[in-house]
């Protein structure tokens, strides 16, 4: 059984971090804890995640506020969309 959180970066965030997908194991308890952990690993990414219009989705649904994270869940950081 999965114990970590799958983290996905889209658009310019991918260029800042140098990766697109990563598992953080064990799962942080909340979205804000995950953000802190990512910022500790990579300060530039931490700043980019706090940038204007960046949204977070948990298990493919936009997550307002600071939701709890369950082991095995997927967190995506979505910068402003380009449109189709």
């Amino acid at each position, binding site marked *: 059984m999965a114990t970590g959180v799958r983290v*996905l970066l*889209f*658009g*310019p965030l991918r*260029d800042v971090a140098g990766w697109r997908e990563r598992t953080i194991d064990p799962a942080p308890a909340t979205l804000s804890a995950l953000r802190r952990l990512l910022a500790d690993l990579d300060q530039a990414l931490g700043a980019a995640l706090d940038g204007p219009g960046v949204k977070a*989705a948990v298990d*493919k649904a936009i997550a307002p506020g600071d939701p709890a994270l369950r082991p095995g869940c997927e967190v*995506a950081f*979505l*910068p*402003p*969309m*380009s*449109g*189709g």
Partner: protein
Amino acid sequence: MIRLSDPPIDPGALLTGFLEGRRETGAVVSFTGLVRGDGGVEALELEAYPGFTEPAIEQIIRDAVERFGLDDCLAVHRVGRIAPGEPVVFVAAAARHRRAAFEGADYLMDYLKSRAPFWKKSHEAAGARWVEPTPGDQADLARWETMETR
């Protein structure tokens, strides 16, 4: 119906399929968006979030069907690296009458262009840059938000 496609898409074949077996449809409007090669663009790179992007577009389609009384809609969107001259998106809207089909396809494209969850990188001679919706796209969208349904 929305489909994301990594391989190139074939608008002619999609239109043929969309027209098949219709008895009540009087009007089908299609839109094909192509990568223009005249601005020094070498390729577009489109990224979607599978499982998140499709439901967002399905919602746009449902809104269009309801607002304009459409028979149905199809959207096929390319992802990955797309060369100049290649189609990026194909959209088709079917209705009894042509006004609804035109407005439905137009609405769909405006929302797709500025609200659909894609991230787009333009690879140009001068380097690569991420693209955001243009002021023109935002203005196109605003038309529907102030316009009354006919």
